[in-house]
């Protein structure tokens, strides 16, 4: 029965994020004419994923190191750890260090529903670790190989951990060869608790409606989406159940792939103890 290993400070797991910082990310995001670029989409996605992961690991006394996280950028400068500031050059960072070292905090506003059902505006601090970057080619193949090497090192030290999760955020236009074989090699690594999970978040200029967790590549809008789908892991049973609870149709072939959509749900799926069903 895989994917049941406890995630705790004494049994941490790991995340590797791969972020596409290539020149094609200058193109508009979600439409051919919009003002938001794909690079902005990538920066927003990784900042939100990290914010959610930090909050997930936050307890009364601070952030518990349930996860170690690596963020690898790939673009014109090759493949390298992507953090800036205090975390610059670091390959595998405990989640508490990430939470305590955003590049800066941005004041944002949001609308929330209060107890009486009224919508009220609220200000809050949003952490920024990554700014949009777009330059040069897209060495996705090498980036996946780098993720594989980080995961291999992690598994050597944590052979029984909850399987590492790798999330690739990209427009899918690899310029250093077909990344399928590298992705396959990564997805077939495993801890004693199950295979490594590789998920893909496709950031595209297409104005096709967002797609979440498909189980079939047929209706995907383009070749890049089909490629990223083919190199995404099928969801383990418990994640599939959670996706189904969120109202999506699932099957045994449902994959960890989303197209111009939100992948923050993956963080919600992580099980570190009792989660109330009415917690949002």
């Amino acid at each position: 029965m895989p994917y049941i290993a406890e995630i705790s400070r004494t049994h941490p797991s790991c995340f590797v994020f791969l972020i596409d910082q290539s020149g094609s990310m200058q193109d508009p995001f979600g439409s051919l004419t919009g003002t938001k670029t794909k690079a902005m989409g990538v920066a927003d996605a990784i900042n939100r994923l990290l914010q959610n992961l930090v909050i997930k690991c936050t307890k009364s006394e601070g952030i518990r190191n349930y996860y170690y996280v690596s963020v690898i950028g790939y673009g014109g400068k090759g493949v390298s750890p992507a953090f800036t500031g205090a975390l610059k050059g670091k390959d595998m960072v405990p989640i508490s260090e990430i939470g305590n070292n955003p590049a800066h905090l941005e004041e944002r506003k949001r609308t929330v529903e209060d107890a009486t059902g009224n919508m009220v505006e609220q200000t809050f601090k949003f952490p920024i670790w990554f700014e949009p970057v777009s330059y040069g080619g897209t060495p996705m193949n090498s980036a996946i190989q780098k993720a594989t090497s980080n995961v291999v090192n992690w598994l050597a030290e944590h052979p029984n951990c909850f399987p590492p999760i790798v999330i690739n955020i990209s427009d899918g236009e690899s310029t250093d060869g077909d990344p399928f074989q590298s992705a396959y090699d990564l997805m077939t690594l495993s801890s004693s608790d199950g295979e490594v999970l590789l998920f893909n978040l496709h950031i595209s200029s297409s104005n096709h409606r967002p797609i979440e967790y498909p189980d079939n590549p047929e209706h995907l809008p383009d070749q890049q989406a089909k490629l990223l789908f083919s190199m995404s892991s099928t969801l383990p049973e418990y994640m599939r159940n959670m996706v189904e609870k969120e109202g999506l149709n699932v099957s045994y072939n449902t994959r960890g792939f989303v197209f111009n959509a939100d992948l923050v749900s993956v963080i919600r799926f992580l099980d570190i103890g009792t989660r109330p069903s009415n917690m949002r």
Partner: protein
Amino acid sequence: MSLQYEAFSLQKKDNSEEEYEDAYSIKKLSDSDSNLEYRFSVADGATESSFARIWAELLTEGYSEGSNIEELQKKWSEQIDSMELPWYSKEKAEQGAFAAFLGVSITGGEESDSNRWEAMCVGDCCMFHIRANEIIDSFPLKTSAEFDNSPALLCSKAMPKQSVPEFVTHKGNWLKGDSILLMTDAIASWFLNRIENKIDSIEMVFNLTSQEQFQELVSTERDAKDENDVPLLKNDDVTIVKIRF
């Protein structure tokens, strides 16, 4: 006619004592032959939320004192607002703390039919009414299969009505010699599961007379595995309140 009670608690393995997020409270309002009145409660702060221990303690103490939930939510917010917090703790607190809760009020008098208990709960804390070494009532869950990881729980922040779980209530009569056990989820699930497997966990719990014995039992059962290699007792905070009439 006085009743006897004792409580045992232990934090999750590998956690420190300060990280224990269950709570219990025992309140004696009256204990004479003609008028017996007690309030007992347990609460279990959810691991995924923060400041859950404060919330679990407020709920159990609030039950003893007869406070309403809005007052307790206000107290929780005041405590959190008085702290200087980094961005992530603020965001986490914004989601509220969550806890399961079960309280039982026990009354008794000289008339035998006045010996009653009334329980109320939200979530998966459980109570068991035991007579002659048999469970004669189990509330709100009756089998170990009913426990899952995501019950609806009481939130320390006011929520839209549709997300607020209702209290479930139950009541019964007690006789001299009966016992009532209150337990938080992990130990309650273990307790039922052992009985389902013909192991006398009632006896095991009744035999506990010290915290040391309790710790030993918990540690043995956490290490023991079933045929699917799943620990008999899930690694979680554990709390038992034993009441004997």
